[in-house]
């Protein structure tokens, strides 16, 4: 890991297109200003991990697909007021 020390209002370049500026520091919170092309996805790491985990969950090997489809069907039928056979 590259470790750099920067002061408030100082900036880092990541390649030619991305700039990260330290806007302020309050206690243990650092406010960053990020300038990047729209094509660059900037995400909080926690959110990235959540979506990655949801993808892994959806791709987990399973044999219960038919059970799940049946549960969703039942839910839809109860939503529309149709009778379901127990």
């Amino acid at each position, binding site marked *: 890991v590259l470790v750099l020390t920067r002061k408030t209002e100082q900036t880092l370049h990541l390649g030619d297109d991305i700039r990260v500026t330290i806007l302020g520091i309050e206690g243990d919170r650092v406010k960053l200003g990020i300038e990047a092309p729209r094509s660059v996805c900037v995400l909080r790491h926690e959110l990235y991990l959540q979506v990655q985990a949801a993808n892994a969950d959806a791709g987990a090997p399973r044999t219960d697909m*038919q059970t*799940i489809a049946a549960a969703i069907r039942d839910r839809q039928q109860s939503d529309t007021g149709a009778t379901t056979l127990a």
Partner: protein
Amino acid sequence: MSVTVEANAPPIDLTALSPESIITFPHGLVGQPEWKRFVLITSDEDGGLAVLQSVDNDQLSLMVTDPVQLLPEYVVELSSADRTLLGLDSEQQPLLLTTVSIHGEQITTNLIGPLVINPRTRAAKQVVLADTLYTTRYPVASVGSGK
């Protein structure tokens, strides 16, 4: 765009798929850069559940659903960069799918990271909605309770 199968049909022959049916995520999914090429498998008796089957790994399939069926007000704001990547002009509506998973008895879908697909070119991207009140585990139904 999708391949329809009968319930209890044998596994589809991935080598026999036409290239027109393949949905491609050029950059893979979030945190899964190698998950790139899929085919969408639907059936009439699936309660809105479909499967994105990997073309490159027959062990990999993702359960997906149509989030708009679930939440009619669900919208995904696409940046112009995303529209360019997907080859969508400003008029064209993409196909939206969200992944489905099961946690105990709860079936949930990920409304934070929808899969956005150009229905014409089948180019696709997983978009992450950073500033919404949605969740990665939006409840869809429960297994076992019958509701």
